[in-house]
């Protein structure tokens, strides 16, 4: 995973709450067995509408999505994160995230930045009044800055550290390989195994 320190790009105001992962990418795109190329599925239904924000220049070139509360609820599909990244997004800002989506983002290097809803409203107004405004998201300082507006964002310390260092979870866990083996040695024999009985 590439280290993430700070990112600057066009901000996209998405005035919707409860953007579930079915909206981010519909199930029909989940049939693929590849890891890339999901950008065409991103917000597929909404992109059929000409006035959808990503169909409007310069928002179509955006890389910082500013969404309403409860972004990424519902299905566990990591394809939602892949689709956002494949389209070009590096950061999603919202006041609340679905837990699984937030976790998936952290694994893939998409920054899910938690910003208080009043600050989200300020960002929305700024981005709508001045389309194409660039937003700088600084993971070192935990700030979002656009023109003269600077707001703080929240992220848990461990995910922040992993993103800053670009560390891969499996590699980190395998440092505890002896602990895993020791735990397995103590597991009860009566616990089920999946081979047919």
């Amino acid at each position: 995973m590439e280290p993430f320190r700070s990112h600057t790009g066009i901000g996209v105001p998405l005035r919707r709450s409860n953007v579930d992962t079915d909206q981010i990418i519909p199930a029909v795109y989940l049939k693929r067995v590849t890891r890339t190329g999901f950008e065409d599925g991103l917000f597929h239904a909404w992109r059929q509408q000409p006035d959808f924000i990503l169909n409007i220049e310069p928002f179509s070139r955006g890389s910082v999505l500013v969404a309403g509360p409860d972004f990424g609820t519902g299905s566990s599909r990591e394809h939602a994160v892949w689709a956002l990244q494949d389209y070009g997004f590096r950061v999603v800002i919202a006041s609340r995230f679905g837990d699984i989506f937030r976790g998936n983002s952290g694994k893939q290097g998409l920054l899910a930045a938690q910003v208080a809803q009043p600050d989200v409203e300020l960002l929305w107004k700024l981005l709508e009044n001045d389309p194409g405004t660039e937003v700088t998201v600084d993971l070192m300082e935990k700030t979002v800055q656009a023109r003269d507006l600077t707001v703080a964002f929240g992220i848990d310390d461990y995910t922040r550290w992993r993103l800053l260092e670009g560390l891969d979870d499996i590699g980190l866990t395998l440092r505890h390989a002896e602990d895993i083996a020791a735990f397995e040695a103590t597991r009860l024999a009566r616990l089920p195994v999946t081979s047919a009985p």
Partner: protein
Amino acid sequence: MGRTLTEKVWEDHLVHSGEGAEPDLLYIDLHLVHEVTTPQAFEGLRLAGRRVRRPDLTLGTEDHNVPTTDVELPIADPVSRTQVETMRSNCAEFGVPLYPMNHAEQGIVHVVGPQLGLTQPGMTVVCGDSHTSTHGAFGALAFGIGTSEVEHVLATQTLPLRRFATMAINVTSPDGRLRPGVTSKDVVLAMIAQIGTGGGQGYVLEYRGNVIENLSMEARMTICNMSIEAGARAGMIAPDETTFAYLKGRDHAPQGADWDAAVASWRELRTDADATFDAEVDIDASALTPFVTWGTNPGQGVPLGERVPDPATIVDENERAAAEKALAYMDLAAGTPLREVAVDTVFVGSCTNGRIEDLRAAAEVIEGRKVADGVRMLVVPGSMRVRFQAEAEGLDAVFTAAGADWRSAGCSMCLGMNPDQLAPGERSASTSNRNFEGRQGRGSRTHLVSPLVAAATAVRGTLSSPEDLD
């Protein structure tokens, strides 16, 4: 100080305690896999030269993509077929047991685990599917994960996790019963409407109280299944005699002296009297009536006897905007009595309500009656085992005599990854778990309901409960 059920299971699975911001490392007892969220995980293992650490704790099934007709034939959709074939080759390559299409044990992953007795109290269970919360009905800590985490569990049989907060959901009534015609589906829909789709974020919900204690295992699974729709990581119910009776004799349940030892240890899996939850919510079930959703998230629900709400009465600006968008999408006018809303399709099935008790409940309502003209009713058992059981009881004959379609097992119209979809603009009453925009097909409109309401709706053609029938 006492510990909650969640904390007990957590601590029993600690491989490594995290220090400071570092998460704990938790051992995973059972990893269920299906064709949709695994291909990229297996590919990751291959690229890194890793193996599946514990194929004997991993079980695969094919459910999301599979057609529910002609299951003995190859899948017609080439993309779906490729994904299912990829699942088979991955499971063969990595030694993971798999129940493929047309196998007697095939079915929806969250129906298969419990019916085989693989899901047991006190275990940790994960799957690349958010409805893994279903297995919490046994007092297991069970939750959905993303594909990166699937790869992580395949490689290490562990997950790095920060502790979840705990929330008690106390569901009570004076006599511990629900009113006639009211089911655990109505309880969980009412709960989500009460706390909201984000109300459970970060929490494990522990369902407690006399109403929960009186529910069957299958009814408990329906409640735990939809914990994710309140945003929760997991739902749990302490195991009791109902749990033990359900498990006893199942294929993978312990036997003989092991059974006795297991039950003795399972009895300890209760929240201690002096333990505290991070939050508590009370649900008064005494006044509960059948519940139905009107909008495009599972929190947008009201009792069936009410009207479509007026967004103008909603104070919160975001909620109001969401309600306006939802009504426009659903093509519903505020103030319309829900009982007057006509549907095109009724779907009975899914990991929420695709078990034998659900099919029995729907069959009892529809027996001797007919599906209304112009309405299509699809009955999709959650697993092949459920299908065989239903056929042994003659339920298939009841459904087909009423004019319903009787199908093979799979996720089917819950998410429309197979041919079972609504056409644009079509409306369903569905026993599934999500009424999101486009969930059951592009432009589809979904009302979430219980199996009883689904069956009554099929008969009348408008949203109905059994008491509306002659």
